[in-house]
């Protein structure tokens, strides 16, 4: 992936620093502070979220046009720290964490299942199943591609920070996410297959330019929780909530794509998630989140915070999609034209 286009002054300063040799970040801190002072919502600020995305990506696959030496550059870490502080503070202010919940496996799992209980109201999954046109299906894939092409990676950061039953549970889930030893069955690879089936380019990071801040924020939250050992409770809770809101919606997504004639190869990703996430939600809720709560009782609030943040951001992204589509508009920042003649 190449560095994306900046979306404001902060991004400009960051991108121009990263195109040089590691070491000089100049006035980056001041620019971060100015961007944070000027924004009215950190979660939907294009400049802030794209800049966070760029800073986090240095820890995943990096950028073709950026020296890998930037990853641990203190000046960048300081700037990231300022952005993260504002991001985390905003998330903690916005979400409602249930409580108090005792640090018991069953109580924590029950709370997570209650937080993620299926609801009958409007949702992106229902819209996709019944109404979405082909262009909107393509948009859905483009929006999701920013995370799904590295599916499971942010949660993997947590593995060395956990121990015992919670660690075993996370590894059991992640092994399945990564295809159980088969590269072709990796969930990110199945998503790439779905993208190709709909005429999209499955290159990692290909559509970052097209996705809005709110989509980047949902990915950035995973990176924030995953990269900080302090937030290991939050990343465990995030994964539990993610898995617990996956099986039923994925059946609906699959239905939406089948309605437009997508073949089995193209819907494999969704079909796989119906079955896999019915397994994962049990392990994530009981053994990972519940197990971690018993090992480290002081993490209960953060486990529930991570879950609540996952759901809150998922709702924000969903509201953005349904609002745009309801107005007959695109949910993307720039148009994406798939190859004609795909499935």
């Amino acid at each position: 992936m190449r560095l994306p286009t900046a979306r404001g002054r902060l991004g400009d300063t960051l991108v121009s620093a990263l195109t040089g040799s590691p070491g000089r970040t100049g006035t980056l801190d001041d620019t971060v502070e100015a961007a944070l002072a000027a924004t009215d919502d950190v979660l939907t600020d294009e400049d802030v979220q794209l800049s966070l995305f760029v800073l986090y990506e240095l820890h995943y696959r990096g950028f073709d046009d950026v020296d890998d030496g930037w990853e641990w550059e203190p000046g960048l870490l300081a700037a990231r720290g300022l952005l993260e502080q504002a991001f985390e503070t905003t998330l903690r202010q916005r979400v409602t964490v249930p409580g108090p919940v005792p640090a018991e496996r069953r109580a924590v799992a029950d709370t997570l299942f209650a937080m993620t209980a299926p609801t009958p109201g409007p949702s992106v999954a229902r819209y996709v199943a019944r109404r979405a046109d082909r262009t909107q299906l393509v948009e859905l894939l483009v929006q999701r591609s920013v995370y799904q092409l590295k599916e499971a990676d942010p949660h993997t950061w947590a593995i060395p920070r956990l121990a015992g039953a919670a660690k075993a549970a996370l590894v059991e889930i992640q092994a399945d996410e990564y295809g159980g030893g088969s590269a072709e069955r990796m969930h990110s690879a199945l998503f790439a297959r779905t993208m190709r089936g709909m005429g999209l380019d499955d290159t990692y990071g290909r559509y970052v330019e097209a996705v809005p801040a709110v989509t980047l924020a949902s990915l950035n939250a995973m990176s924030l929780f995953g990269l900080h050992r302090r937030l290991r409770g939050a990343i465990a809770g995030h994964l539990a909530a993610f898995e617990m809101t996956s099986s039923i919606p994925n059946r609906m997504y699959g239905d939406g794509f089948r309605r437009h004639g997508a073949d089995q190869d193209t819907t494999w990703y969704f079909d796989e998630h119906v079955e896999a996430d019915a397994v994962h939600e049990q392990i994530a809720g009981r053994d990972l989140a519940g197990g971690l709560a018993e090992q480290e009782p002081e993490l209960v609030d953060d486990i529930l915070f991570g879950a609540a943040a996952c759901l809150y951001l998922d709702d924000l992204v969903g509201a953005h999609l349904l609002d745009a589509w309801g107005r007959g508009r695109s949910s993307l920042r720039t148009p994406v034209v798939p190859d004609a003649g795909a499935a």
Partner: protein
Amino acid sequence: MSDAPRPRNVPPSVTACPDGPLLVRGDVELVDDRGEPLPRRRATLALCRCGASAIKPFCDGTHRAIGFRTP
């Protein structure tokens, strides 16, 4: 869509999840009523216990939509 290998080195176990499916791990052969092998696509399986799954014998999470409760 090849099957995942059966984990022969893991002792078999069945975990009854409260209000949810049966999780099957380890060296277990899954067959239909004629003894024909059923597809095993992952090391850990969730078998439907509520009766409402659309992908039986596997769980698809529907127990939560129908409010299934185990005693």
